[in-house]
């Protein structure tokens, strides 16, 4: 048997949740750590606004995703696996997944808001606790479910694990394109494709004045037309905004409302910072927003508080006058 971990490393597969963490390395940690039990979790909590690539895979290729999970379980010596589904996906896919998943994989419904998808919050939720992030380190690969070494990967990652095992991987990934896109949908393209080519090849080059949000409809970065000659890092999500139709303040309000409900309110910078950003948006005065960005980026407890800054920061810098 060719070692799958070697193959993952050789193919340089990166986590597809947006984290870009080398998958082979994560597996190596879980495999090498002595732990009484081991677990594998497939994170299908996809919670970013207008992002739906995992939805597409669960709908069309559930057996490939589950094959990937089983490969992980066998490779790492995990008795039990979990699929952690957001509420809507749970409603829609539970029967189909259940029929392919078999005895060893349990399907769990997501609790809480957006933050419920952060990997340590997922662990808390599966254990039956409120879905709040844990302090890292230890990382789940060291101490995850019930203190045991646990692998958490995203739906798309498991899909490609299965492909790599079958030598059927062409360095591609899935991109969801949404918003005011003329041709919304999920598309598979090489990892190296530029945003420009991606839009062209999917018949999504807008004929109107636009800007983009890349990496998710809440925490993604705002990009202008002149920035699209680069590839996408992080989450494979592109949202197109029609400049004329988009009310910038309303858009920021939508983000901040989403983030305020979606975060866990545990740490000062993210909880209070977002609250004050909401106030600033309501007043339309951004004089003091840099300070909020500063503490959120530098001192938040979990990744959410850090990335939550991105949309506001990039929008204000590039578009707000």
């Amino acid at each position: 048997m060719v070692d799958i971990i070697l193959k993952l490393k050789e193919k340089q597969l990166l986590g597809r949740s947006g984290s870009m963490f080398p998958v082979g390395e994560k597996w190596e940690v879980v495999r090498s750590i002595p732990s009484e039990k081991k677990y594998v979790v497939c994170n299908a909590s996809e919670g970013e606004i207008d992002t739906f690539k995992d939805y597409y895979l669960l709908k069309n290729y559930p057996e490939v995703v589950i094959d990937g999970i089983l490969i992980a379980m066998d490779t790492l010596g995990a008795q039990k696996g979990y699929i952690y589904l957001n509420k809507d996906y749970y409603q829609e896919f539970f029967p189909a997944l259940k029929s392919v998943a078999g005895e060893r994989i349990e399907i769990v419904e997501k609790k809480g808001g957006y933050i419920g998808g952060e990997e340590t919050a997922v662990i808390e939720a599966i254990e039956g606790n409120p879905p709040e992030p844990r302090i890292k380190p230890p990382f789940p690969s060291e101490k995850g479910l019930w203190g045991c070494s646990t692998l958490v990967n995203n739906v798309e990652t498991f899909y490609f694990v299965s492909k790599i095992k079958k030598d059927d991987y062409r360095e591609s990934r899935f991109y969801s394109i949404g918003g005011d896109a003329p041709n919304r949908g999920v598309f598979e393209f090489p990892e190296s494709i530029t945003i420009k080519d991606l839009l062209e090849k999917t018949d999504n080059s807008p004929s109107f004045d636009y800007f983009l949000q890349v990496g998710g409809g809440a925490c993604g970065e705002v990009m202008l037309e002149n920035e699209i000659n680069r590839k996408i890092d992080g989450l494979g999500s592109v949202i197109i905004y029609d400049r004329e139709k988009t009310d910038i303040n309303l858009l920021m309000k939508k983000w901040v409302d989403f983030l305020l409900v979606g975060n866990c309110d545990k740490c000062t910078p993210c909880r209070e910072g977002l609250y004050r950003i909401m106030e600033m948006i309501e007043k339309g005065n951004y004089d003091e927003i840099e300070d909020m960005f500063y503490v959120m980026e530098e001192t938040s407890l979990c990744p959410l508080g850090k990335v939550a800054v991105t949309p506001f920061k990039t929008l204000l810098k590039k578009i707000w006058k």
Partner: protein
Amino acid sequence: MEVIINGKRVETKEGEKILTVAERNGFYIPVLCFHSDLCAMASCRICVVAVNGKFVPSCSTEVRNGMEITTNSPALEKARKINLELLFSQHQEECDDCIWNLNCKMLDLAKEYGVEINRFWDRKSHYPVYHFGASLEYDSSKCIDCRNCIEICKKQGVEFLEIKGRGHLFEVVPSEKENRDCIYCGQCINHCPAGAFEAVGEFEGIEKPFAEKEKKVIFQVAPAVRSTIGEEFGLPYGSVSTGKLVSSLRELGVDKVFDVPVGADFTTIEESKELLERIEKNNLPMFTSCCPAWVKFVEFYYPEFIPNLTSVRSPHIILGGLIKEHFAKKEGFIKEELMVVSLMPCVAKKHEIEREELMIDGVRPVDYVMTTREVGRLLKKSGVDFGNIKEGEMDNPFGESSGSGVAYGTSGGVMQSAFYNISEKEAEFREVEEGVSVAEVEVKRKKIRLAVVHGLGNAKKVLEQLKKDPEKYHYIEVMACSGGCIGGGGQSVPTDEKIRKERKGGLCKATGEKKIRKAKDNQEVIAVYDDFLSSEEAISKICHTRYYKVGKSFVRKSEQKEKNGD
């Protein structure tokens, strides 16, 4: 293993937190939400330090070998300042009336970092105040969401405080669940960095006991207060200030100052009698009952164990009864003209004195309970020079207490007093699990297993063990607070393990100084038995009580007076 802090190499052990290592080596790092009794939840983000350029909270981050740590820089200062401003924006200051008034970490940090306290408006200014029985108040407009209170309440095995969604945000609230109730231990008070919890009466009620001019005011002082009250005046931890306290109280116009340990000697005598009886009748285990938070815990959460609580009243209730029923007559006072005030380390005692069944012919043995903090505040307000005042002596109408009466203030004291009262041998206790110490002794040729428990969470474990094995222990002392009353919810703040140790040390000294060791050797107590407690009826009226199953108590919610017009 070693790390580098501000350029200096220091030794560390695996698993240590950056904060611990830094403090041990004399590096200062500001902290706010961190409390050494609790697992760090790292919510405030004030203690951030830079590790390889990245900011991490030092209270919760473990050291790794070779780590390079910077504890201060303009960038760190900026982050701390802004986070403090954000914390103040959810904290409605009410400094004059706050338990942290003179040693507030928030205000100290504000000064240190040049914080604009009012940079943002107080978003919680309209949040309500919750009233927990006769014991506590929780002003949610001061809460900075650190969740320490939730953690400590959980650690106490109570889980009365919870997180609840409120629009966009979460807030800390008392539970609405029918099977959850506050048992008034007051531990949330000394674990809240923002002063959101306080005792009822703190500090608006501190002059109440003196309001009725025609009444004679009698203070009785609990054991654990004497080794703590000095902290209110900047004396070192563990200083025993019994004499200073007595003279200070006199300066306030108090007519008599009595010592609760004298009451404790009566509790001991009654409790050891009951223990012997129960051993003979094989009606065990028996639990102590002098901690009212523990009593309510049993009454509410474990009513099946109510028959196991000793029927003996707690020391200040017995002494209060003796003052009103016996001392008053002897001195020619009318009991209705007395105002008996207990000075306690405890907020649960405020609830205890309201219990109807403690009344003696329609009169409460104790009229008012003041905490260590309240009396500290009152003395300061009245300008008493505590540090320099001459030491006074207690009025001891029923003689001086034994040493064991003083020992009531710390975990293990009640048990030892009762047990030493019936045995010549010493019991050797050893800690078997966190907060649980046990010993095996022989009484009446029966093997008796004793357990001393502090911290209600630990008591809960023991009750669960007893459910499975009712023979596991035969006599159990429980104190709700960690360390016993020296760590009580009414004590000076801050309170932590180190401080509790110092207070305990002080109390041990005070115990050792007593001429009589055992309650039964206290001739003056015996004289009271001969004189006054000569019938079963008198004893039961003054010294015994009963308990019953209780339902969830009502939590009153009151609106915040709109102070800022927000």
